[in-house]
């Protein structure tokens, strides 16, 4: 009987593969093992003190920023918290760190430092032990975060809320200081109550958009051989060991296939008993193309809409919009209400509605009754991710070109107290080639369109074996993406 069963199994497998496998299987993307090429880098991240050493300079700067926000000048462009955070850090984060380093900011972020400290009662060393679900000793209540909140909705609403008050946040030192101070406090309290980095995973508004846009990144931390992970009994990557802490992001490397929720703390590289975790370079923009929940789709919509409203408000020539957003000086509460409501409606209802419409059209036009609308809605949404990231970069680069000279001045007088540490305190405001701004923005936007369409096509290949049906299904969302690009181009280039 056994050969018959085997034969039947073989036939069934063949039949199944014919039914389910796409005709056009996208080729396996290349990836380059960084740790194999440069073992010294691996040894560096395996040092127990590595993360502490990269956090400390940021912690020091962050502390200076908080002091400057509270006790420095209230004039934003002469206060280091505004100039360094919202001009320098923001541009470096969105234009360099995310595309080329994934969530490398999370490696060095000072916000959860005190929370980690309270939870581990250690800065560098590891405490082996048996705290529930781990092989380490953690302090605090070590509770589980509610399942209903185990998504990025809180981060979505948190970021939208911050964006609503962004005119204050990015110009008023005290507002920035209060927001960052509050985030540190919340992170510390949550670390005492909940296990691991619940704050980073589910609450931090910065982490929310980093999770989305890190999908596009040209680097990833993954296991070298997934089979090895399946054989591994200790699961030290997620549970920890005497060499490394349990993954603060609660990730099992054997199943990790997207960058979204990996904070690149490299604890798994330290703790893996099989030396099976490495850092890889991979193609930009089209490696992780799967959004797995409505929370992630809405995050993509919110971020894209905010890139648009920020561009209108901060770069556009419409003074009335600026006054509406700038509530602390204009005191136009009805205008502010209109702005806040309009922005929220656009981000939460109108744009997702347009996207949903494009999906319904795609389904109708492709006659794709076999593919559920939900699946199409979730999977095609990836096109918004590279588009959103590059729209943010197109918005942010001019910030540095136009206002970068404030950095030179504020380095000498970080608090606006009249210091002149490096004799550059009176360096004048000098925009860097402002006439080039549209020529910088347009190619970036077009690159966003290219990677968006490329991602869309890749997902289409996975969903539709038939090329004609696939192409028909791609048309409506691609038209929407073209429309978005046209709106941005009109705004930036005129």
């Amino acid at each position, binding site marked *: 009987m056994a050969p018959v069963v085997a034969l039947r199994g073989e036939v069934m497998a063949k039949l199944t593969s014919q039914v389910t496998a796409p005709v056009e299987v996208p080729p396996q993307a290349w990836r380059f093992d960084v740790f194999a090429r440069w073992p010294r880098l691996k040894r560096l991240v395996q040092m127990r003190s590595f993360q502490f050493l990269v956090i*400390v300079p940021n*912690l*020091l700067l962050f*502390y*200076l920023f908080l*002091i*400057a*926000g*509270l*006790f*420095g*000048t*209230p*004039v934003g*462009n*002469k*206060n280091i918290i505004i100039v360094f955070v919202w001009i320098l850090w923001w541009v470096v984060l969105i234009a360099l760190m995310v595309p080329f380093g994934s969530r490398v900011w999370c490696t060095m972020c000072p916000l959860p430092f005190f929370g980690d400290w309270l939870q581990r009662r250690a*800065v560098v060393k590891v405490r082996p032990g048996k705290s529930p679900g781990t092989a380490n000793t953690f302090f605090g209540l070590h509770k589980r975060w509610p399942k209903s909140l185990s998504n990025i909705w809180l981060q979505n609403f948190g970021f939208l809320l911050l964006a609503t008050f962004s005119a204050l946040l990015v110009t*008023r*030192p*005290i507002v920035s*200081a209060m927001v960052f101070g509050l985030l540190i406090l919340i992170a510390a309290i949550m670390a005492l109550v909940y296990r691991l980095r619940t704050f980073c995973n589910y609450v931090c508004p910065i982490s929310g958009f980093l999770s989305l846009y890190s999908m596009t990144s040209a680097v990833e931390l993954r296991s070298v051989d997934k089979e090895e992970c399946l054989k591994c009994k200790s699961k030290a990557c997620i549970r920890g060991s005497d060499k490394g802490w349990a993954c603060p992001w609660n990730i099992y490397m054997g199943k990790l296939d997207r960058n979204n929720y990996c904070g690149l703390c490299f604890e798994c590289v330290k703790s893996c008993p099989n030396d099976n975790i490495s850092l890889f370079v991979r193609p930009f923009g089209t490696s992780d193309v799967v959004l797995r929940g409505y929370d992630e789709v809405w995050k993509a919509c919110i971020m894209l809409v905010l890139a648009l409203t920020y561009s209108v408000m901060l770069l556009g020539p419409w003074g009335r919009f600026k006054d509406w957003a700038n509530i*602390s000086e204009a005191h136009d509460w009805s205008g502010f209400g209109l702005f806040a409501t309009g922005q929220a409606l656009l981000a939460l209802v109108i744009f997702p509605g347009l996207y949903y419409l494009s999906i319904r059209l795609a389904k109708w036009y492709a006659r794709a009754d076999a593919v559920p609308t939900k699946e199409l809605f979730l999977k095609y949404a990836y096109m918004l991710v590279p588009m959103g990231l590059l729209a943010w970069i197109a918005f942010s680069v001019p910030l540095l070109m136009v206002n970068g000279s404030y950095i030179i001045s504020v380095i000498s*007088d970080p*608090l*606006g*107290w*009249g*210091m002149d540490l490096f004799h550059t*305190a*009176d360096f004048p405001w000098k925009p860097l080639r402002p006439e080039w701004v549209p020529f910088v923005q347009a190619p970036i936007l077009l690159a966003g369109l290219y990677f968006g369409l490329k991602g869309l096509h890749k997902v289409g290949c996975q969903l539709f074996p038939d090329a004609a049906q696939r192409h028909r299904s791609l048309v409506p969302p691609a038209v929407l993406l073209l429309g978005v690009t046209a709106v941005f181009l009109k705004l930036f280039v005129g």
Partner: protein
Amino acid sequence: MAVILVLLGLPLLLWYWRSDALVHRYPPGTKIINLTAIAHGGIWTREEIAGLNYWWKKPTRATEIPLNEGDHVVVRLHSVDVLHSFAIPLLHLGPVDVPAGHTVEVKFNADRPGVLTFLCWQVCSPDHPGLHGRFLVKGGEPEESW
């Protein structure tokens, strides 16, 4: 330990700069007066205006600032909002621009008793007319007054 050192060290360093290093920039005996211009309400104030108090506290107006005859005075001028301008017409001092966030210094010698009016020299806001005050220089003979 390193973290604690940082947490304590940075404020100490800044406090040292404000309390000691700044004073030693000038010759001994120099009278240093900080004046900050605020457009809203038209106020010159001697209070320190920082992120912490700017948005909720109305500062005290520096209407009269006492000096003694013979004082060497350095006025450190600040603006927390718009471009202001400072002048003491009787001394032909200024007008000097005081851009927002910058610190501008003017120096003079109070070598006669009397009253020196200072003011914002350019229309900076609807409350601009309020931006004035007086240095009251005491001592010496009244006939030597300005």
